[in-house]
């Protein structure tokens, strides 16, 4: 899957699942500092990613994600594995 397709879906999920304003989201955005996503929100986002892309993101890897592009990195790696 193309990275750009993943990025688009990621933004959609951030808007739909976490209620974040679309124009606030950049690939470099940090979940907690820039987007005000609390720790539970990051877990929810990852669950939505798992369901949407039909992948499994183990807790140890999930814990390393702090920015939107890091989340895209992990999904890209799993989807294209």
């Amino acid at each position, binding site marked *: 899957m193309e990275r750009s397709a993943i990025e688009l879906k990621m933004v959609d999920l951030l808007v739909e699942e976490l209620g974040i304003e679309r124009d606030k989201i950049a690939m470099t955005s940090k979940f907690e500092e820039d987007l005000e996503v609390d720790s539970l929100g990051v877990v*929810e986002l990852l*669950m*939505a990613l798992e369901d949407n892309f039909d992948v499994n993101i183990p807790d140890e890897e999930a814990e390393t994600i702090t920015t939107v592009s890091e989340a895209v990195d992990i999904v890209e790696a799993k989807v294209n594995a």
Partner: protein
Amino acid sequence: MEPKVVLVTGASRGIGRAIAAHFGSLGHKVVINYASNAEAAEESAAAVREAGGEAMTISADVGVAAAVDAMFVRIAEEMGPVAILVNNAGITRDDLMLRMKVEQWDDVIATNLRSVYLCSKAALRAMLRAKWGRIISVGSVSGIAGNPGQANYAAAKAGIIGFSKSLAKEVGSRGITVNVVAPGFIETDMTAGLGEEVTASAAANIAVGRLGQPDEIASAVGYLASEDAAYITGQTVVVDGGLAL
């Protein structure tokens, strides 16, 4: 409330059966989990259907992670995601603490407390997606006031309270409430073996002067699961006829 999937652990008899039947009477889809007594579990399922709900039975040791995960997968496939979780499964292995073996301690903690963590964790995913959920665990006055011979049981039941308060704070913003119902002396197989003398002496210390009925615990659980109780979370509702006063 439209029909929801309700999982009641340890529902083959006693309080669990009464809780299952109560949700059946409210028209819900009830999953009856049991450890080994398939026949009794089927009787609970019949009680649910008679009361007006749908029912399925599923055997799983709720103290074991793999068994819990497999159970939730099967429930999702056959009935849908669990919206209301009632952690009722519980055993006693009473003994004076000084004589209590490690197995007695471990078994009670596993079935009564680890199960609450395992089942709540498994249920939370779907509840978070739905932004709605109810996690209700059955505690005990034993866990609040202590009880000689029940250091293990009381520890597990008290642990459920701390767990529920913490989880309530974590997930409250997602429309999920986490509460405990703490029964006193209820007429079930668990208290049947106590003997007339103990029962009579217990009743003398109970304000309403009698043991409780499983239905009286079920209705408290039913209330906490309702929309009316959406502002109640992290609480322990003591249903003991005024014993632990």
